[in-house]
């Protein structure tokens, strides 16, 4: 079979104004001229699911820590027989990945090591997971203690009398190093259970595919999925707060939630307001350590810093409760449906196969909830604190004249920040002006221009020639990079009848309705009841939106992407990983989303767009 190819990295045009972009990133993150032959021989796919926009130099930290730590658990901890880690590069500002296979002749030797190591985890799952929570929260607590105060005009007298013998600059340098180390630490912990969750899931997945050939992936997912996951907890807290506000008659005070102070003040002054505020404060810590993005960007907004976001969601829930809508997720119905599905598949098996099914499903159901729950602790909570501290440092240095915008530190690589800090303490220490204020503003402006130029181009979905089949389990499961998906990107896929898009059948059901294309969390407020959400990718903190919409279409993601998990939970159809849904579909177009088949049809041509508004009609045919 002739295999079409994606472009080579060197064949992609550099957007005007982005010339010299390679120097924005460390040498080891970009493709090398000297390694061109080896690198071009590998297949690389773009992870725009986690990194949908161009990296500012400092932001590579998330990609580096995450993908490196994912790999270490495959290759060094668990000795997974058939999968090493994933190599990664940044090209034109986007992250590309290439899974590393285990040479055929090494697989067998890894099996006993793998079984011993994995066995230990599964036998001690509960205890180890408890320990994990302690470790992770300990890291966060230590992060919270770090601060970056301005250096004093002179060493305080008590340091003279105590014979301290240090000027405090060492504390600043240590704090920075420690903050980076703590982030690294929680990223290592992040994967301690994640890979196991995937392994257990895939083991059950492969078994199901053997005994039930072509069983839909959705069925397998629904048999191990948790129902009350921490992923939904922040959203659930908002719903409870909305219900309490209605109960206490506080609705009138939610008229202008953009003014946080006035809103909270009015509630405090109202009868029953104390009770509501006490519950609000309780929910805030930790559940508002929640980003509207995905935790990988310095510009992410967090609920606890931008309280107008959760308050706005609460106001919306209050409106829906007052209209008599049921805002809670149909948890009982979901559990009943999950149990029915398990029971019916199980009944189709006999004897030994039934026992194997029970064992593998039991393991997957034990391990899998971590996959859904860990996200809050690392991507949201850890990274929320991390970025808050980094902004604090950036602002301190901005005050010292190092750059012109408060958050410009993000245009430095993390090791350049160390240099800039030493520049600062040297200048301060000797009583001279540091060099940075004369060096960085101009350099940052140049870099800003390059980053903005890179942002004008979308990434290629993949690079070079794909393998005949894609087998690496994590790649398939987490990124939805399957052989079929790759073929579709290459335009060799089966045409959708009547024209349209094809993706993963991530959550079943068929819905017709009007599209609402959302490329940025700031546009979420435009979403109207009953519309079909079309997005590059969704984030956990978009939770409140899912009670409003009738279906979801994403460009990126597989069966286990956030959109897939949440839509299954809400009983909404979803088609994920369409590749180009958000660029092909326009807001207001009428769509037919078939989450059972994985197809999206655009029912009206672009030229007769209807104005989308509230009350968009939708009905389910299922």
């Amino acid at each position, binding site marked *: 079979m002739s295999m079409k190819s994606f472009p080579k990295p060197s064949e992609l045009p550099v957007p005007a104004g982005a010339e010299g972009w390679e120097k924005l990133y460390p040498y080891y993150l970009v493709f090398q001229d000297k390694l061109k032959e080896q690198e071009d021989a590998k297949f690389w796919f773009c992870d725009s699911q986690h990194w949908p926009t161009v990296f500012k130099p400092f932001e590579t930290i998330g990609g580096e820590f995450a993908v490196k730590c994912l790999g270490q658990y495959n290759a060094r901890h668990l000795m997974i027989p058939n999968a090493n880690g994933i190599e990664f590069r940044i090209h034109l500002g986007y992250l590309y990945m290439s899974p590393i296979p285990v040479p055929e002749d090494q697989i067998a030797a890894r099996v006993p090591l793998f079984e011993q190591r994995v066995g230990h985890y*599964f036998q001690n799952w509960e205890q180890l997971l408890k320990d994990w929570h302690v470790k992770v929260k300990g890291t966060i607590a230590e992060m919270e203690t770090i601060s970056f105060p301005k250096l004093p005009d002179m060493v305080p007298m008590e340091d003279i009398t105590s014979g301290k013998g240090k000027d405090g600059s060492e504390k600043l340098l240590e704090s920075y190093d420690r903050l980076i180390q703590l982030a690294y630490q929680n990223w290592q912990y992040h994967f301690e259970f994640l890979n196991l969750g995937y392994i257990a899931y895939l083991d059950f997945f492969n078994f199901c595919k053997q005994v*039930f050939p072509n069983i839909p992936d*959705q069925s397998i997912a629904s048999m191990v999925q948790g129902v009350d996951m921490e992923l939904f907890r922040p959203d659930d807290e908002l719903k409870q707060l909305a219900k309490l506000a209605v109960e206490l008659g506080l609705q009138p005070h939610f008229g202008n939630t953009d003014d946080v102070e006035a809103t909270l003040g009015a509630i405090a002054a109202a009868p029953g307001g104390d009770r509501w505020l006490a519950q609000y404060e309780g929910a805030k810590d930790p559940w508002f350590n929640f980003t509207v993005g995905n935790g990988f960007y310095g510009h992410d907004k967090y609920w606890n810093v931008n309280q107008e976001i959760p308050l706005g969601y609460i106001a919306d829930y209050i409106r829906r409760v007052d209209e008599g809508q049921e805002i809670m997720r149909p948890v009982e119905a979901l559990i009943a449906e999950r149990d029915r599905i398990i029971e019916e598949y199980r009944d189709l098996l006999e004897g030994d196969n039934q026992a194997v099914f029970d064992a593998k499903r*039991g393991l997957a159901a034990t391990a899998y909830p971590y996959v859904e729950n860990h996200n809050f602790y690392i991507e949201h909570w850890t990274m929320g604190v991390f970025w808050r501290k980094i902004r604090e440092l950036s602002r301190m240095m901005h005050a010292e004249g190092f750059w012109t915008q408060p958050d410009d530190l993000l245009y430095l690589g993390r090791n350049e920040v160390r240099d800039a800090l030493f520049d600062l303490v040297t200048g301060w220490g000797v009583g001279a002006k540091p060099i940075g204020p004369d060096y960085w503003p101009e350099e940052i402006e140049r870099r800003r221009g390059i980053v903005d130029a890179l942002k004008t181009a979308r990434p290629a979905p993949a690079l070079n020639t794909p393998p005949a089949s894609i087998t690496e389990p994590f790649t398939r499961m987490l990124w939805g990079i399957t052989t079929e998906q790759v073929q579709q990107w290459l335009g060799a896929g089966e045409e959708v009848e009547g024209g349209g898009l094809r993706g993963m059948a991530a959550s079943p059901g068929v819905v017709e309705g009007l599209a609402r294309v959302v490329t940025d969390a700031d546009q979420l407020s435009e979403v109207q009841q009953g519309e079909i959400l079309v997005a590059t990718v969704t984030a956990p903190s978009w939770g409140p939106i899912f009670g409003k919409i009738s279906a979801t279409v994403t460009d990126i993601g597989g069966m286990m992407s956030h959109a897939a998990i949440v839509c299954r939970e809400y009983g909404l159809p979803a088609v994920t990983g369409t590749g180009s849904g958000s660029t092909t579909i326009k807001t207001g177009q009428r769509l037919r989303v078939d989450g059972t088949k994985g197809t999206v049809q655009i029912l009206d041509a672009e030229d007769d767009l209807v104005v989308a508004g509230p009350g968009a009609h939708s009905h389910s045919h299922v």
Partner: protein
Amino acid sequence: MQSNDYVQFFDGGIEPKLENLGGKGASLVTMTSAGMPVPPGFVVTTAQFDAFMDEAGITAKIHELLAGLDPEDTRQVDQVSAAIREDICSRPVPEALRSMTIAAYESLMGRFDAPVPVAVRSSATAEDLPDASFAGQQDTYLWLDGVKAVTDHIRQCWASLYTSRAIIYRLKNSIPNEGLSMAVVVQKMVNSKVSGVAITMDPTNGDRSKITIDSSYGVGEMVVSGQVTPDNIVLDKVTLAVVSEHLGDKHAELVPDAGAKGLVEREVDDERRGRRSLTDAELTAVAQMAKRAEKHYKCPQDIEWALDADLPDGENLLLLQSRPETVHSSKPAPVTAPQPVVTGGYFSGLSTPALKPTA
């Protein structure tokens, strides 16, 4: 109208009794109450037959005529048979019974916009007879219009209990005439706009987690006999998700033609050929019905179904036939051992206790 002792609708919600309804009638009532929608209709029960035979004075006469009859004397048997059948077809049915049957027929017709043709079939109570050609088992009259045609053919079914052949058979096998009775089924003729088969497995590999559906326009004969290429859809049995579908050419259809009292073949236009013959909702309904049939009979089924043009959407799916699937069901279910680790099964080499989660 309500079901009663003399007339029982398939969907009347009354417990089916073989001795009241006969084999065919009881099976139709059972299937209907198990959620398998057979073409609608009613059973004229054995109680009605018995009441008619008694009140019309035929029962007493029969015993006289049959006493001492020699099964080898076919001429005499023919005479007796003709006399009995003449009585059954000519003596008046008591008005109370007759009006119940007429009301039932009118009530059945009332379910449609206009009167529709029906079939009248005998439904014998004798179950233990190996020979299916036994009296009354096979009497079927199709495409009947109007109350007179229906009542006449009910009598013909009754009379079939006393054909020469049936009388001889009973005499030779020492089957007494006491308690002999007959129920009659009156059922709508199916007006198939779309029909086909459904097997509650994947016949290509015996996978029990699938439902395979063939579907085409018109009545099912062309699908069954292979004269058209139907649409073929494979669904997951548990979630009813479509696993694969291939559209067939479906170039022709056989459709009922009331004027011709039978079927005519027609070309199918390009637009209908080019799309699937079932909507998503209809496909789901067929699959759910197949699942119910399998559950009811406790083994994989091979069913024939049709969408009836005379019934409203959502209520027009009918089950024509459900038989055990025999090709694969006689083999053991496919047991696929987990593959060794190298091909991706992670824990196949591990003893299960080693992987017991602590939960």
